[in-house]
């Protein structure tokens, strides 16, 4: 039979009950939107898990200092202590730091408010409001961290791979800038930091730095805090609405800004030990009294464990949702197919084969599910995208629609298998009864 004829006949039943079809659309819409939410939540945690699992953590130590309980003076002393020790110890081969800085993007020497990146530079005359600075910033990576923790990029190159122009610092920007800048663009940012900071005294310093765009972070942003026994943030996790880093910049000792400045806020020190036997234990023993010195592998394992714990709830939700969806969609499908089965008798007397009856049934099912699934998926996708937490990807939409379609087709297949092969005479007899 011609496909156009098959399609036409399949739509007989498809067009049957507009109200029932509308109800099915609403039901599928609700299922799709819930699936998108649950799947995106699972992915929200799974991407940092995947990132962390790829980190080569042997011979690396994570050192942090709990700056929340201590003064900045104590923090500086602790970091300085680590660096001094690193210079003298043969157990340490490299040391790298990351930290956050407040920034603004400058245009013609003044901050560009259109880019909405700066939150506090105007407050320099009023240091009482310095807490406003915590709403925005940049994350500075040194080469060791850039090498060990590659970023999840939407496009562009990793910091460690990008060759920036002379006098420029390579930067990976937040995905929101993807339509504002191109890779290779150079612009000026103003970094600021507290040069002296204690509960009574602080002085704010500035440095204007040219940055060159190396790439853009993945559109999905992740944030999580890894606690107990040390902490580590991947850049992807920091660039989030909760902590809106605008960019990750690479620095080294030749960077045109004082690298000490950014160590005063949220510092993380990554230490690579030498290949000497016992180097890892030696460094940990030496640094533990001044902060949290932990094998990076342990931190990553703890982080992955915690992330997986956080994934457990959405996974349970997903399973429940799939069961509910299977029952609901299977119900709609079952009711439609009881009617469709009656139609088989009519098709038989008009000259259809069993195969044509089944093809009609399958095509009808595809039509019934695909139109509302795609429409509901698109509507859900754009609805959820419009929410402030913009963490959705096209794959959430595709997965949700795919799950609904799969449930529908499996329930159809189940029904077709259960039908076995019906003889035309039996079908007519059943129909007449």
């Amino acid at each position, binding site marked *: *039979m*011609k496909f*156009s*004829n098959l399609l*036409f*006949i399949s739509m*007989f039943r498809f067009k*049957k*009950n507009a109200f029932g079809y509308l109800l099915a659309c609403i039901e599928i819409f609700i299922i799709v939107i819930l699936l998108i939410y649950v799947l995106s939540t699972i992915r929200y945690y799974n991407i940092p898990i995947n990132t962390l699992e790829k980190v080569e953590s042997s011979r690396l130590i994570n050192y942090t200092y709990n700056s929340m309980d201590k003064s900045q003076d104590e923090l500086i002393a602790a970091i300085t202590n680590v660096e001094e020790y690193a210079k003298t110890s043969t157990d340490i081969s490299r040391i790298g730091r990351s930290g956050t800085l407040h920034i603004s993007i400058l245009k013609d020497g003044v901050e560009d408010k259109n880019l909405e990146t700066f939150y506090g530079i105007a407050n320099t005359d009023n240091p009482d409001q310095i807490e406003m600075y915590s709403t925005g910033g940049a994350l500075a990576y040194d080469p060791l961290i850039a090498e060990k923790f590659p970023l999840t990029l939407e496009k562009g190159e990793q910091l460690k791979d990008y060759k920036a122009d002379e006098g420029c610092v390579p930067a990976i920007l937040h995905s929101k800038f993807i339509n504002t800048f191109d890779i290779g663009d150079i612009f000026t940012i103003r970094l600021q930091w507290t040069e002296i900071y204690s509960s009574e005294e602080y002085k704010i310093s500035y440095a204007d730095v040219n940055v060159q765009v190396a790439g853009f972070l993945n559109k999905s942003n992740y944030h999580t805090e890894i606690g107990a026994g040390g902490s580590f943030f991947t850049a992807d996790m920091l660039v989030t609405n909760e902590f809106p880093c605008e960019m990750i910049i690479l620095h080294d000792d030749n960077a045109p800004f004082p690298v000490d400045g950014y160590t005063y806020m949220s510092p993380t020190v990554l230490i690579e030990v030498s290949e000497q036997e016992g180097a890892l234990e030696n460094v940990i023993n030496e640094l533990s009294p001044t902060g949290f010195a932990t094998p990076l592998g342990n931190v990553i394992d703890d982080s992955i464990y915690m992330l997986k714990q956080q994934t457990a709830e959405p996974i349970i939700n997903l399973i429940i949702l799939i069961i509910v969806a299977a029952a609901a969609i299977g119900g709609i499908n079952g009711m439609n197919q009881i009617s469709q089965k009656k*139609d088989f*008798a*009519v*098709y*038989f*007397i*008009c*000259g*259809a*084969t*069993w*195969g*044509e009856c089944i093809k009609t049934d399958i095509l009808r099912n595809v039509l019934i599910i695909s139109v509302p699934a795609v429409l509901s998926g698109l509507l859900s996708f754009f609805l959820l995208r419009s929410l402030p937490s913009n963490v959705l990807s096209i794959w959430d939409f595709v997965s949700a629609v795919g799950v609904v379609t799969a449930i529908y087709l499996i329930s159809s297949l189940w029904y077709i298998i259960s039908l076995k092969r019906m*003889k*035309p*005479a039996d079908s*007519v007899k059943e*129909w*007449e009864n």
Partner: protein
Amino acid sequence: MNILELKSVTKTYNIGSEKPVYALKGIDFAAKSGESIAIQGVSGSGKSTLLNIIGCLDSLTSGEYYLDGEKVQFSNNKHIAKIRNKKIGFVLQNFGLLNDRYVSDNIALPLLLGNISIGKADKLALSAAKSAGIDQLYDKKVKKLSGGEMQRVAIARAIVTDPEIILADEPTGSLDKATGRQIVEMLVQMAQSGKTVIIVTHDDSVAEMCSRRFYIEDGQIREVI
């Protein structure tokens, strides 16, 4: 020449592990073009089984069935479906229509299944509707029609592919007497125009309108003269 001929046709059903039940026992039956044939018998006598075999809805257990001079191969489903589509038209007691669809869809269905394009099928279906006197109902939904109108739709669908044989299983069973008579008159007229019409009926008055009458009892058939 016989348009259809059954030779020693037997049909058995295996119910559980008991001996096979004979629905038809060595039936010999033939029909020519232009004949209107009534088949009568009590319930369970095998008349519907016979009609199903003639209509290629069911297979036979033994014997031979020749249609238009060719032996029917029941093992070939596509071949059997094609015969149902091209050579046989069905009219059932409960009409056998897609009630939630339009008259046009119902009449065009055999044409669509027979690979006729949608546009051409629509034209042919309208022509069949005119022949059955229901062209004014062409765009109506079947469920809004009366019993007599529905049976006319079934007749239009049965003739739309211009088949050689029309099989009617209790075509008046769901209709009042007057309407039933009109329907049978239509069927008989079709026979007079060259088609072979076989009607299974309980109703003697219907049978009397046909050119030949058969009675089937305990799976065996005899002609009533």
